[in-house]
């Protein structure tokens, strides 16, 4: 409770000078683009009430709105016609929207209204780091507002190539435009991650979809799920291909040199438990992950990559006793929140294999997505066997990849294992 109060006060304290700083520039931006910014609502047709809201802006054509994929994901994931998309202008006008196309990888969606909505905003390249940016949207359904911040640069691949924005984005502002002084769009508001840390999708990705749609005379894509699958598969294969060609750092855990951080792609942390005087064995635990994901639906995200190494040293323990503890730790679980409507059960294959001259009991488990053909989760667990008082567990958890790419990445990693005693 105290912490919440503190956070609230801290937010107010940060917000107060921001308001005072409001320059004539932000006032003119607000008045100039107000007509081009809308709220998007996902309406449950059974109750007539909105289920999700976000922001959107007119771009390229007076009837075209751009927003985030995650704002309209409920509409997309319930294709039976239970939901509809509506827009709401700052002046209170509403109307139905049609979904034209999505880019699930960059969290973008393009919608079309039956009437002209406002003046289309222009798209510009990402300005240099430190440039003043103005983010527009409808935070928490409380009315349109403008948030000022600075461009802190494009994140590395581990953060989806997004722009780090110093302003404070709130739920409901997702899908709104972020402008520079010239009133051109450079990014689309996407998500908040902790206090005052917000991300923007570079508007260039939006430009790519819009160009394609323009060639097609703004006709809606036919099978959205097919499109989503293609984007996800294509992205998964490219991602793994890129990882395989990157320079992995190699570090020692126990008697093994193993692949650890991939600079610009994954980060590793030590997670070893603090040794206690009663411990008979020592364990060393390193966890690595790509710290990013692709949002598909509530509780469903893919594109995560996590791997971990646990080295166990049984010291002078009796081997049978050491192996009891070792066996108890040999259980791998998936971090994914995918449910029975999304994926099949895991099917597993277990056998013995030799890696760098050492024997491993290696298990590969696979489950497949129902709605995204060709997309799978891969869960791999390897246990070093054949050493009486030493053990190592290697777990690899990949979500929303293709089986072939996952296996290729696994091979790349295992081939990098080097036994050094």
């Amino acid at each position, binding site marked *: 409770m105290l912490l919440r109060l503190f956070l609230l006060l801290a937010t107010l304290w940060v917000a107060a000078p921001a308001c005072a700083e409001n320059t004539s520039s932000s006032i003119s931006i607000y008045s100039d683009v107000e007509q081009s910014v809308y709220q998007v609502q996902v309406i449950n047709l059974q109750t007539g009430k909105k289920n999700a809201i976000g922001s959107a802006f007119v771009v390229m054509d007076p009837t075209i709105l751009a927003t985030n994929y995650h704002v309209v994901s409920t509409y997309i994931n319930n294709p039976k016609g239970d939901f509809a998309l509506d827009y709401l202008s700052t002046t209170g006008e509403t109307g139905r929207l049609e979904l034209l196309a999505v880019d699930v990888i960059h969290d973008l969606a393009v919608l079309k209204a039956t009437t002209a909505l406002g003046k289309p905003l222009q798209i510009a390249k990402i300005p240099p780091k430190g440039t003043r940016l103005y983010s527009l949207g409808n935070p928490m359904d409380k009315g349109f507002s403008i948030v000022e911040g600075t461009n802190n640069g494009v994140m590395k691949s581990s953060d989806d190539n997004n722009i780090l924005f110093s302003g404070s984005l709130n739920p409901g502002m997702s899908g709104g435009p972020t402008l520079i002084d010239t009133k051109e769009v450079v990014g689309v508001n996407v998500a908040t991650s902790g206090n005052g840390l917000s991300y923007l999708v570079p508007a260039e990705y939006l430009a790519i979809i819009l160009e394609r749609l323009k060639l097609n005379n703004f006709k809606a894509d036919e099978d959205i799920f097919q499109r989503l699958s293609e984007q996800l598969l294509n992205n998964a294969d490219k991602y793994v291909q890129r990882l395989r060609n990157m320079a992995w750092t190699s570090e020692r855990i126990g008697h093994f040199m193993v692949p650890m951080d991939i600079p610009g792609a994954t980060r590793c942390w030590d997670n070893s438990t603090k040794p206690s*005087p*009663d*411990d*008979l*064995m020592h364990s060393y635990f390193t966890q690595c992950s790509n710290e990013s994901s692709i949002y598909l639906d509530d509780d469903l995200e893919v594109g995560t990559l996590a791997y971990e190494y646990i080295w166990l040293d049984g010291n002078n323990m*009796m*081997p*049978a*006793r050491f*192996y*009891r*503890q*070792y*066996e108890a730790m*040999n*259980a*791998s*679980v*998936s971090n*994914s929140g*995918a*449910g*029975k409507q999304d994926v*099949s*059960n*895991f*099917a*597993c*294959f*277990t*056998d*013995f*294999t*030799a*890696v760098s001259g050492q*024997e491993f*009991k*290696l*298990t*590969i*488990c*696979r*489950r*497949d*997505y*129902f709605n995204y*053909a*060709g997309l*799978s989760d891969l*869960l791999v*667990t390897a*246990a070093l*066997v*054949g050493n009486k008082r030493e*053990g190592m567990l290697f777990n690899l958890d990949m979500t929303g990849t293709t*089986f072939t790419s996952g*296996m290729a990445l696994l*091979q790349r990693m*295992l*081939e990098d294992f080097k036994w050094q005693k």
Partner: protein
Amino acid sequence: MAKMMIEIQTRGLNQYQRLAHFPVTIGRALDNDVILSDRSVSPHHLRLEQDEDGQVFVHNLVLENGTRLNEHPLGEQPVQVPIPSQLVLGDRKLRLVSMDTPVENTYVSHCRSLFAPLCKPFWAIMLLFMAIGGLLVNDYLDVGLQKDLLFYFSGLLPSLLWILFWTLAISGITRLITHRWEFTPALSVVALFSLMPLVFQEVGGALNYFLTSDAPTMWLVGGVSDFLLLPVLVYAYLHWVLNQRHLPALGFALVLSALPLGLRAINLLDQVTADKEFSSDPYYNQTLSSLNIHARPALPLADYLKKATEALPSQVEE
């Protein structure tokens, strides 16, 4: 005139009274010829008479708690009694038998064949020590922390009490049936019942690792240990220690095991149902063994990956 006897059935040790003179009165009162000190029997319950031809008639004297002759209730009219016949007076059973009824064979020794060693104190105590040792070793292997010896002994106490309780319970039941205490075989049975699951668990684990399959544990622990061990031990005890015939021993063993087996069956059913449901956890053979003895040799990585790819096709139509 055929000589006859009355058999007074009491559990484990029947009593016989020769009938020399008629009429014979039967009842709870002390002036009867045959006295049955059971409160479900009336003071003067029954009279047996014999006519000139040697036929025996039963004369029911009261109707308080009833009398049954060969399953049929008797009224106040005298009824002729064939030999042999069963009479039930209240809750008490009698049999009217002729003097030349054949005598059953003598049981030379209790504890026969398979069970013979288990009736010897040496083996019973050996089994007890093996069970205690097994439990101690199992606890020791399970704990991955530095602990005092006392810790393991305190963990053992509930199991020891359990063994003692069941040994007393089983020998107590034996006492009721045979009028003898049978500590040694009871101890053997209980020690075996404690020891065998550990053995099955250990053997199953080793076989699981050897075959890279969970089937051995499933059958040895889930099948043999959980479902067969209890009725088999009860049956063996009844048949070879208490000299029950095969079928009654089997029936009794099943009845006695019904409750624990029923509970286990419910658990098993739940588990089977849960296994068919969606689970986000993968199911694979997780056994590890310090001996590292396995049937299939370790494959080179490339071969392994090829085999895995073949073994894991897509589960969704593409």
